């Protein structure tokens, strides 16, 4: 291969490296919205992906349910025994809610402006990035269904991420496990005292979230549940993020970092809930009763 690196080819290679760097540079910038062609491609391919994804998923679901069949009996017994408990708890919840509302109205707090008000709507996952470097999902609801960028996305178990880009008929979700310096969540634990901090990244090898900026004099323990704090502006208060599995004091010694195991399985995702916090400003009557 004598002309493997002829002058002309070398120039083409150099030019394409320059173009590569320029492209990465421009697409790494914070962008409010995608360009029209990008939206068009993502939408039309999203539609094709859903054709492939849905049958495959139902086949996988069938196998899974056959596998679950044998545990069914034991599980049923357990659930029956928990059912009585559930009735008692839900009665208690009702009275507490009523009491809370009464107290709020006595104090003249408008219940629609709380940190923890939100509406949810459901969407299905239709694709996922095959290379695990980018943890992005595609879901089948878009701008037409009322999805907006930066809305929180959760499964019934807990938070999984936020909406990154919106196309007319589909949108892209960035999972909490995606390494990105802008992927931050204000979080807190709620035992006897509220402890605030920030979820600042994901350890890919340990598969835990880093809950950092916790003041060193506050006490956090293993097993505590971490929820969203709601003062970051994007997420409402009270969505479960995960459970603390380990705690470390930082090098400087002024803050500590807790490792949080996500409550929802980030790989076994089918149906997701998109959490819309903005609805409270439009219509104050809505948003109540939607909380879970």
């Amino acid at each position, binding site marked *: 291969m004598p002309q493997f690196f002829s002058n002309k080819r070398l120039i083409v290679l150099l030019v394409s490296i320059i173009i590569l760097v320029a*492209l990465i540079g421009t*697409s790494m910038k914070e962008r409010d919205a995608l360009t029209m062609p990008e939206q068009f*491609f993502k939408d039309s*391919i999203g539609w094709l992906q859903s054709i492939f994804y849905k049958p*495959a*998923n139902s*086949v996988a679901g069938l196998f899974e349910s056959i596998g679950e069949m044998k545990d069914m009996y034991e599980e049923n017994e357990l659930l029956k025994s928990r059912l009585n408990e559930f009735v008692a708890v839900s009665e208690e919840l009702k009275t507490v809610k009523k009491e809370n509302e009464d107290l709020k109205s006595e104090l003249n707090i408008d219940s629609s402006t709380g940190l923890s008000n939100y509406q949810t709507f459901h969407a299905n996952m239709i*694709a996922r990035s095959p290379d695990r470097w980018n943890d992005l999902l*595609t879901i089948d609801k878009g701008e037409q269904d009322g999805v907006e960028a930066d809305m929180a996305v959760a499964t019934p178990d807990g938070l999984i991420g936020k909406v990154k880009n919106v196309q007319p008929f589909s949108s892209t979700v960035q999972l909490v496990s995606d390494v990105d310096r802008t992927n931050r969540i204000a979080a807190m634990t709620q035992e006897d005292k509220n402890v605030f901090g920030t979820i600042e990244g994901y350890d890919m*090898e340990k598969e835990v979230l880093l809950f950092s900026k916790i003041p060193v004099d506050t006490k956090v323990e293993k097993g505590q549940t971490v929820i969203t704090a709601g003062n970051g502006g994007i997420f409402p208060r009270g969505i479960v993020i995960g459970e603390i599995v380990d705690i470390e004091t930082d090098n400087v010694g002024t803050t500590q970092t807790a490792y949080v195991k996500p409550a929802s399985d980030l790989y076994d995702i089918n149906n997701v809930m998109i959490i819309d916090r903005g609805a409270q400003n439009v219509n104050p009557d809505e948003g109540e009763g939607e909380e879970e």
Partner: protein
Amino acid sequence: MRRFFLVGTLFVLFLLEGTVFQVFAPEQYGFDFQLIPRFVTVIVVMIGMVLSPAYGVLYGVVFGLLHDLIYTDLVGVYMFGMSVAAYIIGYLSKVFHLNWFTTLILGLLGVTLMEFYVYELFSLINVTDVSFPSFFYSRYLPSLLLNGIFLLIVYYPVKRLLEDLSESRRQENQAKRRSFL
């Protein structure tokens, strides 16, 4: 006609990587390793070997760009990686006599080139912070096995398709030359 069939196959494989394969990905069932499907890359590298490096680059640019747009938010990474892998392997393949074994080795070398390039680039711009041993053992080696098996399964049909394609192209060129004279 055959060309459309090739493009169609590549496109369907591209869709399968992100959809059907993700349903059956090993992480869902609690395994530690990752299987990264690089089916499109494998075929694009084979195009570079059997047709010509230039065609490899062409298909690499098109399907790499598609991968960039749909599955990542950085444009250009896979476009560059896929086409350069196809080009280098396309030229290397001229040294060897192509049979299933050399195609397997060269195809896996192409996947390796792209996998390492993407890892290094993403480490450089902080998209990932996975350490090299973890990348190598729990990600690169299992994926190599998966893509190797895929290559062996599709080797004969894809090779025939590509050889038919290059044959019909040669005839077309001859006919064109004849009509010029």
